[in-house]
């Protein structure tokens, strides 16, 4: 092994340690709930907690709804911007990046000011309204990831020709989007969807300030009141995120008509 390679490996090992050690430490700590040795007791307690099941279930449903809303907003927008208004692309890209620049706390305070109980549209006054606000908020938060991945997907196919081919065969806009465009950017949509899922599952600021019992506030509450369970919960949250990343890879590689890695 040459000296250069040795240094490269050393850098990789150091980087790996930097990322992995805290996780290993956290995992190790989460296994020590019983004094007489390693066990999954903390995980058992967490998973058996009805509050965990309730908040986690709620967040999963919300994440799925956010994904659906995101697809409905982003796919037609990105498609028409590419097809008909390419000049608007930089503007739309900038708009979709705003949630990364504006902190969620600013957005949620804005929501509360505009939609409070004494406003014209008092969404925060009802359970449905609050959930709707949360859903819209999460759709906004997921915009940068969703838009980028869908736009990248659209770049890989010749949407102009595909659209015209479908039109000449008699298809209208709805069918073109549903049957021709969406399936061909499905892998990209899934990437965006999994990222959205990972974001929504752990989101705290929106949920806490709108006073909604989702998984994020539950994790924070657990962290302030228990010793071993928060670590177990953090490991579970990490596992979910990683599973999402893994699924993105899986779908990209094994998509039936994808040419990746063939």
């Amino acid at each position, binding site marked *: 092994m040459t000296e250069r390679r040795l240094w490269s490996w050393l850098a990789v090992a150091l980087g790996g340690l930097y990322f992995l050690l805290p996780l290993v430490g956290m995992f190790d700590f989460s296994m020590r709930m019983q004094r007489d040795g390693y066990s999954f007791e903390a995980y058992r307690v967490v998973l058996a907690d009805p509050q965990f099941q309730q908040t986690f279930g709620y967040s999963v449903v919300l994440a799925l709804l956010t994904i659906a809303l995101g697809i409905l907003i982003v796919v037609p927008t990105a498609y028409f911007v590419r097809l008909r208004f390419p000049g608007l692309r930089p503007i739309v890209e900038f708009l979709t990046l705003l949630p990364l620049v504006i902190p969620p706390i600013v957005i949620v305070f804005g929501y509360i000011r505009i939609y409070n109980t004494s406003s014209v549209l008092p969404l925060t006054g009802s359970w449905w309204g609050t959930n709707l606000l949360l859903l819209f908020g999460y759709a906004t938060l997921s915009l940068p990831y969703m838009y980028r991945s869908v736009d990248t997907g659209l770049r890989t196919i010749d949407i102009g*020709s595909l659209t*015209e*081919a479908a039109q*000449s065969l008699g*298809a*209208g806009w709805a069918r073109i989007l549903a049957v021709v465009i969406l399936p*061909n950017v499905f892998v990209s949509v899934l990437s965006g969807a999994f990222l959205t899922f990972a974001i929504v599952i752990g989101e705290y600021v929106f949920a806490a300030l709108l006073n909604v019992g989702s998984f994020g506030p539950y994790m924070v509450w657990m962290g302030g009141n228990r010793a071993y369970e928060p670590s177990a919960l953090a490991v579970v949250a990490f596992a979910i995120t990683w599973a999402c990343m893994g699924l993105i890879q899986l779908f990209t590689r094994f998509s039936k008509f994808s040419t990746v890695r063939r």
Partner: protein
Amino acid sequence: MAFLDILHLEKSFGAQRVVKDFNLGIEKGEFISFLGPSGCGKTTVLRMVAGFETPTSGAICIDGRDVSGLAANRRNIGMVFQAYALFPNLTVEQNIGFGLRIKGEGKAAISARVGEMLELVGLPKLGERYPFQLSGGQQQRVALARALAIRPQVLLLDEPLSALDAKIRTSLREEIRRIQRELGITTIFVTHDQEEALSMSDRVVVMHQGIADQVGTPFEIYNRPATRFVAQFVGTLNLLDARLLDAAAGRVGLGDIPVALNRELPGRVGDRLSLALRPETVVLGRKDEGSVVLSGHIAEVHFLGSVIRIRVAVAGQIVSLDTFNQPDTPPPSIGTPVEVSISDRDLLVLAA
């Protein structure tokens, strides 16, 4: 009234007029090619017929019905694209059946039609494959089958062979023509390749700067070009500068050499003219009595295999001529004094 009538069609993009007063009548079952360089407006006309572009003015009538205001998906026009445009997520069968499913045809009818189309384009066993599993030529056959499956009134082909290699291009163009004849479908074929246009079409429309410069059979277009552009764009051509000596007697001066064309010419004495001449009509050496004989010397020799292209310097200008390769006669060497013969009938007079 023709089956497909294009009347006073105009298209402008901003201040730029890309199609100017385009008129054409296409009979049912006719194969028409739009031939011209990039940017001449041929694709824009095709896209207006397809419904992908809205004409600035003018009308497009199919079978007596004005379709200019109709959306592309309501025109029942089949289109084949340069980039194939097959749906990557659908198999070959699903691609071909796409338009029929939209029309709401039954499963059995779709399956039968798809089978028929696959037979027609010679790919009966590839129905289950995805587009990425096919070669370029196969993909374009599928695209053709897909466009024909819906029984369109008109078939539009937008440079369908440009992305293919030379051998496949030749075989596919013969196949397209065979299928077109078999189905008797009215077809417009857009190309910048003159060989494709001349070999496939019933009539060729040569387009230049948004105008149809000439419409005619391949034979007419090649042998009797109406404008200087058509003459230069279609085939190889010698263009010689000349001066009118006697309009009534049809005599012109090629440099110092007087040439008798034996037909009345327009213009006045002293007017500048261009004489156009195909290389295959020029003969090396002295031909029969009636022909015009010019003296000069060999300037260049290009050996192209079966054909030898020789350039002869005559009266300060270059005349290209083609001779067939003869294994026992080596090509003449550069600088050799020679005579070339031209039949006065083959000399076309174009305004300078």
